[in-house]
């Protein structure tokens, strides 16, 4: 379970997140949506403990990451997380095999032979076996996302955080990533948080949706409740209109 309670974050005079609260139930996935630059990725970094909120609390399961001050305390909590970054954030000096094996070898300090078995198994289930000897720059962005997913899931995390799953992908590759998230959800059963501005595509991987605008959550509910929402900002965003309460900056 992830609990974000009354979180406030500002950069200089700019308020990015203003008293945000979200609860994600165990085994469920929530999509946080909103236009670019409203603080969605900041929220993700706060949950990962990479940034510190000015006030408020963030819990991952029973651990309060906002109270962990040292990196080692935060790392103990981060062991529950798997993260798929916007650009996959693969290590370009490593092969795809080594990228997938990385958390096993460096985080769990697993032996190379044990890690080898797990890498082959997850590569097989995500159809990555033919690419294991390649470097990230030698494969398409769609495959890189799959590798990122394999790396995020290989340690069997309780929580999966996904940042903009189909940025830079064509509609087919984008759909493949959503299918992948759903397939992985069924197979591994994690609690998920997906950050996206892709509506309504992101609804297919989320049980609940929260929309952020001007640092606040302006609407929250199931995907069908969001579609039926009377909020003009939600409708403007859903329908991709330029006229409405959301001003393009």
């Amino acid at each position, binding site marked *: 379970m992830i609990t974000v309670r009354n979180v406030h974050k500002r950069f200089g005079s700019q308020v990015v997140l203003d008293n945000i609260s979200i609860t994600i139930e165990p085994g469920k996935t929530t999509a946080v949506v909103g236009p670019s630059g409203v603080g969605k990725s900041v929220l993700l970094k706060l949950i990962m403990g990479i940034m510190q909120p000015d006030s408020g609390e963030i819990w991952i399961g029973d651990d309060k990451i906002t109270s962990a001050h040292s990196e080692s305390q935060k790392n103990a909590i981060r062991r529950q997380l798997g993260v798929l970054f*916007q650009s996959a954030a*693969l290590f*370009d000096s490593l092969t795809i095999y080594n990228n997938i094996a*990385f958390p096993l070898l*460096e985080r769990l300090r697993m032996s190379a032979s044990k890690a080898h078995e797990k890498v082959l198994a997850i590569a097989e289930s995500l159809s990555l076996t033919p690419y294991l000897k390649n470097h990230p720059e030698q494969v398409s962005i769609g495959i890189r996302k799959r590798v990122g997913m394999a*790396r995020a899931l290989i340690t069997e995390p309780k929580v999966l955080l996904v940042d903009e799953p189909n940025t830079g992908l064509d509609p087919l590759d984008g759909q493949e990533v959503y299918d992948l998230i759903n397939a992985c959800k069924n197979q591994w059963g994690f609690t998920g948080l997906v950050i996206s501005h892709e509506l309504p595509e992101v609804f297919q991987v989320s049980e609940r949706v929260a929309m952020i605008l001007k640092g606040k959550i302006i609407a929250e509910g199931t995907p069908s409740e969001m579609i039926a929402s009377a909020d003009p900002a939600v409708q403007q965003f859903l329908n991709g209109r330029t006229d409405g309460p959301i001003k393009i900056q």
Partner: protein
Amino acid sequence: MNFVATTEQFGAFIIDTTASWGRSWMFLYRTLVALVKPPYRPYLYLQQVLQIGVNSTLVIALIGLFTGAVLAVQGEYTLSKFGATAYTGPAVALSLIRELGPVLTALMVIGRAGSAVTAELGIMRITEQIDALRSMAVDPIKYLMAPRVAAGLIAMPLLCGIFNVVGIFGGYLVGVGLLGLSAGTFMSQIISAVGLVDVWSGFIKASVFGLIFGWISCYKGYTCGFGAQGVNKATTQSVVTASVAVLIVDYFLTSVLTRVFME
């Protein structure tokens, strides 16, 4: 009103500068702690010694050869005015071992490897690879910075040794081969003039410069700004700051070491 605004700006500048200094010293402290704390990853250290040290050997040897050669020409010219060309060998050797070896090696390594380290870490920062490490509970200071700083500390004195040896050889080639100095005199004067303290002071300097190289090039890459422009700025700042720092520290180190070793 203008006075208030100027005072505010000045205050903000002082606060920013002090905070930036504090952050860079804390970064060095965390890196040094990470160097001694387990888990150790020797293959990462060897990889960096290869990239920063071994791959710089050729260029260091080349610069050393010609620096020694130039010193021999200049030394012979200057000393001939006092009828003391027999001391060309010691002039070349002492200049290289005590001063030019450590300083020129540091400047070359900063130019060649420091910029590469900053650019690599900067790109890792802007492509979220450093965030990915942190999200996987792997400390980037330990995984990325400590091996690079250690490689600077290990490689710089070794490269400085190569620079000195090749430089003296270059001086010998020019002094004996072209300027007609006696080979025996050239070498025997070096042996009698150069003491172990000279060698030690050169290596101490090289080690300190190695630390400066690793610290500044890693810190600038780690704190790199956004986009290609951020990497560009960080790389330039890294080379300039590290080079200036080496030359400033060199003066103070020379003063202290000369005093310590002379007493």
